[in-house]
């Protein structure tokens, strides 16, 4: 379980994240318009950005001062907005560098790509490989930064089935509302760095404040 308590991050005069608290214990989606602070919050959770205030707890353990490597060793897996892979290495090596959990390339539709360099994969396949790499680390909590972005229908459906089989808590940042509704059981909405609403997908869809924020916003 991942707990974010009163997390804030200030960049100069801009407050990117403003006192956000949330608990990730199941399939949790984080949505909001562009610039709402979603990716910054994910970076704060993963340790790539240090908070100006607040704490991060992983399974009850305070990891606020730990860097991304230490958090990963404690069980925090993640993917990035732009897939982060070892491009010169083949897909099989990328998977093995991710960890020793029993995840196969077949699981993400990449069977037969064992010897193919990761850098030669098209964008959608890179996203799927990165999810497999993150799962190979046997994470206790998984952070996903827009995993469905740029995927075709088939890859999107495959990703959905892969994520549905993940048994650990997942924090998903995603613009694709249909994907969020299909996957998440809890949705948190950020607006201008602050928490606007949190609830089930249906309650969030019916929330007037959320609708007002999204009205006219490109999301």
């Amino acid at each position, binding site marked *: 379980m991942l707990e974010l308590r009163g997390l804030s991050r200030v960049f100069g005069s801009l407050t990117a994240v403003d006192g956000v608290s949330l608990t990730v214990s199941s399939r949790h989606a984080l949505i909001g318009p562009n610039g709402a602070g979603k990716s910054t919050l994910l970076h704060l959770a993963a340790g790539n950005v240090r908070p100006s205030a607040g704490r991060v707890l992983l399974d009850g353990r305070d990891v606020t001062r730990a860097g991304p490597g230490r958090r*990963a060793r404690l069980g925090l897996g*993640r993917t*990035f907005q732009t897939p*982060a892979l070892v491009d010169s290495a083949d897909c099989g090596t990328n998977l093995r*560098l*991710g*960890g020793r959990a029993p995840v196969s390339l077949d699981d993400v539709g990449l069977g037969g790509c064992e010897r193919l360099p990761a850098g030669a994969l098209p964008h959608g396949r890179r996203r799927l490989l990165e999810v497999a790499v993150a799962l190979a*680390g046997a994470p206790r909590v998984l952070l996903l930064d827009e995993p469905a972005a740029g995927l075709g229908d088939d890859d999107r459906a495959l990703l959905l089935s892969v994520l549905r089989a993940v048994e650990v808590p997942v924090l998903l940042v995603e613009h694709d509302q249909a994907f969020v509704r299909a996957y998440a059981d809890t949705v948190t909405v950020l607006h201008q760095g602050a928490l606007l609403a949190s609830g089930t997908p249906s309650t969030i869809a019916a929330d007037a404040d959320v609708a007002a924020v999204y009205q006219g916003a490109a999301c």
Partner: protein
Amino acid sequence: MKKWPTLAAVAAVLVTLVVLPFVLRNFALLTIARVAALGLLAASTALLTGTAGLPTLGQVAPYAVGAYTAGHLAHAGAVGLVQILVAAAAAAVFALLTGLAVVRTRGTVCLMVTLAVGELTAIAADQWKSVTGGTDGMARVPAVRAFWGGEPMLKGVPLYVYAVGTALVVLVATWLMLRTRAGALVRGCRDNEERMRASGHRVGLILLLTHVWAGAVAGVGGALLIAVQRYVSPADVGFEVSALTLLAVVIGGAASLWGAVAGAGAVVAVRDNLAPAGQAPLLLGLLFVAAVYVLPRGLAGINRRRDA
């Protein structure tokens, strides 16, 4: 890369190395032995620059540590094997200490920090007379005996066998290391540190250990240098040697150990044999420009281009 052409090329090189002592004269064999020493320095530079992504101008520093250490051991009567092992260990310790700063930097900053390490080491070699002999260098180094009970090596053939044999052992060991999971980790740190950290790998430690390994390789190169020359001075470990080494790596291919050694051979051949008197820097400059334009991936890229 196709398997059979590669194996055929390796076999051809090995046969050539075996035949050379029977067909070349003393001076040519000593030149190749010097190439073996410089080749290890170039390979250590390629290991850091091309494989680990830490561009360096400072590998002459552990090379110098290895050379002066081996020189002192030679004066103390140690055999070549001991000289090589202790020189490698001393250079590795040196690389461990300097690596603590080097692996925290990347890109141009890394180049500047390693340049500073190399230059400071050259200055130390220049001024620490009681240890290095100062600008006069460490002279009258006894001829090395490879093993206990062996004859001192004065002629081209035994020195060729000693230097080329040692260099091959070190290069093969490094090549094998890079083919294991350790090599994949090093290349992973070069290609995508963020991913490696997100997968829980200790990037700083991996790069530090690579720096230490590269330092040991350069240290062995230094030990071979003093075995062949029986003399070392600050000029052997100065900026010019760093620049030539980087040139060898550019010619050979930044991520290829074997390419770097071939590049070192090309640099020495141009500098010592092909260039008219006084024109070596000009010819080396032209070689550099030609290498960048004609072989952007170095000699090691030729095989890949043929396969493409």
